[in-house]
């Protein structure tokens, strides 16, 4: 079973992956389509040529890079499927599944210190430089010159809200009701953030709320920009944000917002035990979105890592999807690979030494704040030993800089209802600051 047996999720197109035909659904990510087709190895790592596949399924981890339609290093988890899309693995000798260069990982089984590699004599050293250059690097040059992007015109908006999850939606709601012209941007193809996982935890806003807020923004002459990544905030001539829209056709936008709400949420954190980078180890939230929207089921037996209400809900959703679900405890010792090449997940060894066979490990442990934008503006980050995560040092109502506020999970773990409330408070803060500036 790789996809729920439900006519709503029936594949409607075919993509090619290294020449093989893979059934897919128009608009689902390439990474999700490959998972549904049982192709978990998408790439090879840069140094040891270890097998790699999608982990976060949300654009942050970059472990699923492949060549797509002649362009190198494309995140397959952010590339929507359409009929005829050509996907090729990179950085392999042979295929991704049986890359001959995987030998590097075995020869240097105890690791390779690149600082000291072959420094014995000049001849060996020159050889090391020459050979390692050939082994390094991921994709090959683009096959063609990409079309020029349309010229960028500066845009001005009252408020830019980055992230259309609960916090961003809460903020947008308040800003719109105060009459602000809002640009709500999200890098995903659909708004909703973690609500798209359908965890349906107690107190979660209903999914229909997402549509309500989007409608309110549109009625107030605002805009919800999807597949639109805010790639940075700069201070050239005052605060400006750049949006990269995937298209088609892709375009770049330069926005000068009067105020900014950063509701970028979190990044999935991969586990860090032996061989935990094996394909088949998947972030639970990304996996649940693929399950809810495209019926993707990564295996018959799934282990869930993590504890707490969210991990419980993840286990329940996967069980409801027909998988056999087991809990992986707090800190597994190692992942065990399948077959002779051991290149996809077959089992994990738990802390007590028992072996838990599984086709996939759904990681529902603590996520890290996606705090890149506040950090660009100079926000301090402190490490909290208790949660094992960094925390943004924000002021009242999430203020991180003049007219810039952070809201929701980027400020720390909180449930969706609390995140929405955090977004509302940030928006009120931004409005009050604007009022004070006018006064």
């Amino acid at each position, binding site marked *: 079973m790789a996809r729920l047996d439900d006519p709503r999720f029936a594949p409607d197109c075919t993509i090619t992956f290294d020449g093989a035909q893979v059934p897919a659904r128009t608009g689902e990510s390439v990474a999700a389509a490959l998972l549904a087709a049982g192709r978990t190895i998408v790439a090879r790592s840069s140094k040891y040529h270890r097998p790699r596949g999608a982990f976060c399924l949300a654009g*942050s981890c970059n472990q699923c890079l492949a060549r797509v339609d002649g362009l190198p290093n494309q995140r397959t988890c952010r590339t929507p499927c359409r009929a005829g899309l050509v996907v090729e693995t990179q950085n392999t000798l042979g295929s991704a599944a049986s890359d001959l260069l995987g030998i590097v990982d075995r020869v240097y089984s105890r690791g390779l210190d690149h600082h000291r590699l072959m420094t014995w004599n000049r001849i060996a050293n020159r050889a090391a430089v020459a050979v390692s250059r050939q082994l390094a690097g991921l994709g090959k040059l683009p096959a063609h010159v990409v079309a020029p992007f349309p010229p960028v015109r500066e845009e001005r908006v009252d408020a830019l809200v980055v992230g259309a999850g609960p916090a961003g939606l809460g903020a947008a709601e308040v800003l719109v009701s105060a009459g602000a012209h809002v640009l709500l941007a999200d890098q995903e193809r659909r708004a909703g953030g973690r609500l798209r996982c359908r965890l349906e935890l107690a107190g979660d806003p209903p999914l229909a709320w997402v549509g309500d807020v989007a409608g309110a923004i549109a009625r107030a002459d605002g805009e919800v920009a999807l597949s639109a990544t805010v790639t940075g905030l700069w*201070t050239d001539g005052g605060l400006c944000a750049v949006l990269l829209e995937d298209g088609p056709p892709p375009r770049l936008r330069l926005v000068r917002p009067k105020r900014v709400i950063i509701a970028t949420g979190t990044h999935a954190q*991969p586990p860090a035990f032996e061989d935990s980078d094996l394909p088949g180890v998947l972030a639970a939230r990304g996996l649940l979105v693929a399950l809810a929207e495209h019926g993707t089921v990564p295996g018959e037996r799934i282990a869930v890592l993590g504890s707490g209400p969210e991990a419980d809900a993840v286990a329940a959703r996967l069980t409801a999807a027909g998988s056999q679900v087991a809990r992986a405890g707090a800190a597994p010792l190692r992942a065990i690979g399948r077959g002779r090449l051991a290149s996809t997940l077959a089992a994990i060894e738990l802390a007590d030494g028992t072996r838990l066979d599984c086709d996939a490990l759904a990681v529902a442990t603590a996520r*890290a704040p996606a705090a890149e934008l506040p950090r660009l503006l100079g926000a301090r980050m402190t490490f909290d030993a208790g949660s094992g995560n960094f925390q943004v040092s924000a002021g009242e109502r999430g203020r991180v800089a003049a007219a810039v506020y952070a809201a929701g999970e980027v400020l720390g773990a909180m449930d969706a209802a609390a995140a929405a409330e955090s977004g509302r408070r940030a928006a009120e803060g931004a409005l009050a600051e604007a009022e004070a500036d006018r006064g």
Partner: protein
Amino acid sequence: MGKAILCACEDVTLDDVRRAFEKGHRDIESVKRYTGFGTGPCQAKSCLALIARELLRLGATPTELEPFTARPPVDAMPLAALAAIDPATLPIVPGVPLSGAHGGAQQQVAGERGRAVTTPSCQRAPGAPVRAARERAGALAASPDEPASGAPRPSSPLPGKASIVIIGGGIMGLGLAYQLAKRGTADVVVLERGYLNAGASGRNGGGVRMQWTTPTMVRLAKRSIELMRGFATELGVNVWLRQGGYLFLAPTRAQVERLERNIKVHEAEGLRTRILSPMEALEVTPELDPSSFVAAAYNPDDGTVFPWPFLYGYAQRAEALGAKICTFTGVTGFRTSGASITHVETDRGPIACDTVVLAAGAWSKEIAALAGVSVPNRPTRHEILVTESMKPWLDPLVSMLGNGLYFSQSQRGEIVGGMGDPLEPEGVEERSTLRFLARFARAITTCAPVTGGIKVVRQWAGCYDVTPDNNPILGAAGFGNFLQLHGWVGHGFMMAPAVTELMAEWMTGGRPHELFERFTIDRFSREGGAAREDFIIG
């Protein structure tokens, strides 16, 4: 198999982090540079906390667990997208400071420090008390009990005295410490305000070329490259020298004439530089647009290196030979007696010394001012970026004369490139601009159109230490025992191996090389001075 991977982009393992920590790389900026974590396509989105957790387990302190300075963009951007921005719409003046921003990382604070007015005088201000000079320049750290910006504190004690104190732990300072120690003069202390590679030595593009305009500079560069070829075996650390050549593209006839003048010098010095037609240049780099230049100069023996490990190699060997490297130690002033400096004051206490060497790059002007010595340097920001990594496709470093564009491919496959901005004002400023991204993207996609599909993953800035004639400042200044080793205008990194060797020979009793007589600070008040170097990239 059998590895615990923390940074999956660069395959950095748990053992790599432990090894870095054991070697003294305790803070996150240093661990990033030593292990390479966070330098790949995800820019540490997945691993920053994992690394911090491990460092905490190993014994790092909370201040050592500050994340590394965030660099734009936060998500990779194709150069073709950035080229759609008209840089003329983005002013050069830095934006309105964000009043709500906290202190932020040390580098950003550095950018806001005092900018003394340039005075061409090279004489010590008569009778000016050192303390007043310090106030004028803005003290580099407030006082010993107020450490700058919560920087990690070093654990080793500060020596109370040393024969030679070198200010600046960049390649110049560390290279000199190694060369001195190698010659038996190991009573040397190097003071570095931040971590190793915090300054321009850790921020440059790693280009090394012999294509200069004077025999002196050609010979220096030639010797440097020779030393770089033996660096890994002599010092035990790889620096990834790759001699893929330098290709200077000339867009006008006037620029071609410049190249032809250089070639005469190069021929006399035995270099293999030759002029190429656009079609011949395409044989070296087929991706160039031949209509963007009329001729090129190519020396196949120029090349690129990876800058960071030079500092590790020099520091490790210098320490093994007895020198002391004190990181996170800022200079706050000097004590003098007559025509000599007797002590260097730091935010960790004073060090008595016989000789002081100033090798602080763009900060040299501020520090010289603490001793009441005025140097005519103009620190100027220079911006640079790196792209996603690609399989090998570009052998030489390509430099376009006229607009200052340059780019090369690193050992790991990234395009590393920069471009000077004629409108850049003087000042120590290390923040990044969108304007640079737009200018660079337009220039490189015009020069090599296929690069439009390559994505930028990180941008940063460092400072060129510019002098009035684009030549360095060497020899004593102000005090008989205050030796200068700065003013290299963006090419100090490539010259350092040779220059520090010559300087150490001179300081340990050898004859002074002509450099240390020709490029003394009094040339600016001398009739004629030194000829202006006009072959500066960027």
